[in-house]
């Protein structure tokens, strides 16, 4: 898995199952969430956007974690596959972040009466989007030398990873109108108790994970083909296809 040719060959078998799994779970999760989950006692039916909003928010942070970790691997051990994973993840993570912000705004209008409020979580999500844009921006600025670009982008990702908790806690200083976390493992007072609401949420969380894996591997494979275009394994691969 460490070398680009075997990464390319092995992940080739994974793409289709991952896509099918993601699609099945997503269809099930959306139908279950939009039609079968009971309406909320306070928010009525408009809470149903949660089944997109919350998994997207989880993914926006999860993917930044992946970028940070693969950034460390790419920077320290100069692994090409880690570079590919990092740069393939960035646009997907940025899109999930944008989706989180967008669905959050649509949800906020009927619930809070405003599209945007500078509360802690919205602001830190917006700053997270800037971090994604920074990683992609530094990479595209060095488009003549992809390896150097990837190493600098990895550095930016690591700096962002170190700063993320600081940004997060500094931003929490404002009083927040955001509702508490949707799910609390420790069984706090807030959060979802009803299994029929929780089920579609967890299914959607799984679906987004599989979609991310599919999309990321697809992008990483193209990334490797592009950056290794003069290597013999790529030429052989192209002739085979």
């Amino acid at each position, binding site marked *: 898995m460490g070398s680009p040719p075997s990464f390319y060959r092995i992940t080739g078998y994974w793409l289709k199952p991952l896509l099918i799994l993601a699609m099945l779970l997503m269809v099930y999760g959306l139908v279950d969430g939009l039609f079968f989950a009971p309406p909320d006692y306070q928010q009525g039916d408009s809470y149903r956007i949660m089944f997109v909003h919350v998994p997207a928010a989880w993914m926006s942070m999860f993917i930044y974690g992946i970028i940070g970790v693969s950034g460390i691997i790419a920077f320290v051990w100069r692994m090409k596959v880690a570079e590919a994973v990092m740069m393939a993840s960035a646009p997907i993570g940025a899109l999930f972040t944008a989706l989180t912000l967008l669905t959050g705004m649509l949800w906020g209008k009927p619930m809070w009466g405003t599209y945007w409020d500078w509360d802690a979580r919205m602001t830190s999500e917006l700053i997270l989007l800037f*971090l994604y844009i920074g990683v992609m921006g530094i990479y595209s600025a060095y488009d003549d030398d992809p390896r150097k670009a990837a190493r600098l982008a990895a550095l930016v990702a690591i700096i962002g990873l170190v700063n993320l908790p600081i940004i997060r806690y500094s931003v929490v200083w404002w009083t927040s109108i955001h509702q508490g976390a949707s799910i609390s493992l420790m069984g706090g007072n807030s959060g979802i108790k009803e299994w029929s609401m929780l089920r579609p949420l967890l299914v959607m969380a799984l679906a987004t994970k599989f979609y991310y894996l599919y999309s990321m591997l697809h992008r990483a494979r193209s990334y490797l083909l592009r950056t290794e275009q003069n290597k013999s394994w790529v030429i052989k691969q192209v002739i085979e296809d």
Partner: protein
Amino acid sequence: MRFWILLQRDVLVAWRKKSNIYQPLVFQLLIVTMFPLGLGAGAQTLQKIAPAVVWILALISTLITLENIFKDDYEDGSLALYVLSGMSLPLAVLGKAAAHWLTTGLPVILFAPVIAVLLHLPSTAYGVLMLSLLIATPIFSLLGTVGSALIMNIKNGGMLLSVLIMPLLAPVLIFGAGAVLETTLGNNPSGHLSLLAGCFVLSLSLAPLAAAAAIKVNLE
């Protein structure tokens, strides 16, 4: 010690070209004029936004100078000489940051009361304003070396530099402007100032390492 030689050289270079020093201040003056023009000259409105505006102006006027920290040294090859000379690269970065702070941060701190007067900031907050800037402007310079090292061989990298540095500066702005705001409201700003000092210590210890890593990648 090479650190001092580097510091002296950089301050001298900046001093010879004085526009580097006064341009950020002129920029602040220009922007601060826009606020009454756009908002209406009512003292109460201005007073309300004063802590934030003074702080954001200090931040932005520093931000526009960051791009050049390493650019000239990279272009005339002296940066490669620092690396080859065998001196510790993070220490060299620290020297560059110190020189940048002396020529940009210090004037900004000394100029802040002028901006504060123009915005009707309550005079009780002046001390905290200057103290918060005293802690925070070194952070601008330190993080600036990281951003500048990342973009030093890109044409028109200023915008990218802002995108890279702005998220890192968000906590600094929250604590810094927060300290001034708390003072104008009659509260004790020491909590904000301590957190600001924490940010300073963290960036003092990590930023030179990050900038040195970026320089090494860029010179490979």
